[in-house]
């Protein structure tokens, strides 16, 4: 079975194609912006233009826009290929990537919105412990349970807490096979992780 994985939820824009769990080809670029321009060409550069029987996409949390771009692409590709679409929480992929090198419990801290961080703990079995939270940095540092901290705010959290060991990481679709199948979600919908800004455009 061929699987295409897509992760656009952070500055990283990544896409990878697998055959029976083995990476055939993949790309991961640190873009900041421009995922809407880069993602589809990146997929088109893969063998067979990325054609797969299953598409697995990051649902966030992360950048609202990035999450939507990844999901829009995944759904459209799946529609044409008549493939299945599955989703995963971004922080679960970070935890899985961190556990590759350090197979132990890990707290994941990622940049969120309005100065907050997304935080979630993962147990020694790699499964999430408790709910995802969006917290101010100090609150996140206070409640993170584990010695090892991974993610884009790992170093900042460890510095704030004054203890622990940081694994700075951004999600990368090439590592999607590391995910436990129990974190894969059917009928994927965005995990925004925080409420929308209910702001109207500047009035004229």
């Amino acid at each position, binding site marked *: 079975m061929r699987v295409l994985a897509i992760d656009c939820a952070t500055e990283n824009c990544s896409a990878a194609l697998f055959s029976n769990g083995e990476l055939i080809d993949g790309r991961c670029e640190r873009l900041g912006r421009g995922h809407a321009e880069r993602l589809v060409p990146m997929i088109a550069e893969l063998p067979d233009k990325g054609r797969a029987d299953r598409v697995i996409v990051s649902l966030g949390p992360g950048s609202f826009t990035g999450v*939507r*771009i990844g999901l829009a692409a995944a759904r459209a590709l799946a*529609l044409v290929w008549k493939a299945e679409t599955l989703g995963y929480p971004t922080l679960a992929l970070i935890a899985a990537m961190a556990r590759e090198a350090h197979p132990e419990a890990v707290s994941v801290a990622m940049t969120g919105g309005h100065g907050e961080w997304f935080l979630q703990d993962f147990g020694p079995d790699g499964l999430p412990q408790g709910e995802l939270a969006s917290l101010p940095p100090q609150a996140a540092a206070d409640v993170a349970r584990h010695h090892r901290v991974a993610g884009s705010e790992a170093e900042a959290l460890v510095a704030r807490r004054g203890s622990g060991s940081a694994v700075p990481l951004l999600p990368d679709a090439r590592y999607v096979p590391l995910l436990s199948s129990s974190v894969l979600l059917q009928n994927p919908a965005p995990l925004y992780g925080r409420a929308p800004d209910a702001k109207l455009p500047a009035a*004229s």
Partner: protein
Amino acid sequence: MTNGPALVLGIESSCDETAAALVTSERRILAQKIASQDDVHAPYGGVVPEFAARAHAERLAPLIEAVLDEAEIEIRDVDAVAATAGPGLIGGVMVGLVTGKALATASGKPLIAINHLEGHALSPRLADPTLQFPYALLLVSGGHCQILRVEGVGRYQRLATTIDDALGEAFDKTAKILGLGYPGGPAVERLAQQGDPRGVPLPRPLVGKREPHFSFAGLKSAVLRAHESGNYAPADLAASFQQAAIDCVLDRMQRSLETMDEVTALVVAGGVAANTRVRTELEQCAASRGLRFVAPPLKLCTDNAAMIAWAGIERFAKGEASPLDVPARPRWPLDPGAEPVRGAGAKA
């Protein structure tokens, strides 16, 4: 390219309507669906960009599937995928454009990135096969208010734009003042039918002026003051506002037609073209100049995907396609060469 008629899938997500449509080069709309977000935005009295983007992301893919199902068309039978690439609320535009890119690459069909305004500008040709270039176009929607000379696909000369509010925006703001809810255009038109169009003295900004542009901010403020005075019935305010707005539009239209090179017809498009009074008055204006008058059917006036598919067909016929890295554009003037107008901003 096949010899039969071309078939294009159109996708629209630039404001608060999620839409998909299948249209042929023979002007047949095989299927079209629109999911309005009025329910999402109504409590805020305007379109909230993040809510709009979320709703597009949720609704677009199922809508496209429904359109394909209804027409009993497989995506491989489509000749091209046309998606709005701007101008508009960028979060929503990206959802539609990335969806279009992914559909195109997976099915091996060309992508055609469409300017939403070009969709409006060419929509009368979808409705009327006899409409030839060049034509004079009054484009009046919630975000735009322009007079253009449409010379061909991709060739637009802008003669006038608004220096403040768009015409649809003026209807929406008047509706808000009168407590009629959102979107306001149709509500103002309904209420106006019961009112006296001369009942409230209101200004007609820029009427008679040499400069060709529109202005509606002063009219809206006058409506607000008149309403707050408590001296006027809402129906009279609605009717008088509509009359003043139409007087402005006619005066500006006449002004532009005087300086415009020859055209085959006077055409109106965009959401406000759904207004019956606007249509009839423009029709008389056209008749008085010996011009044909063309207005698309109502469902092609407000945002829809059939007009995006049609613009795609016009461009596909010219052998055009867009690269997969084409950007989404919050601003995208139809006539980039037009002189900037102070205050026009995104409405230019």
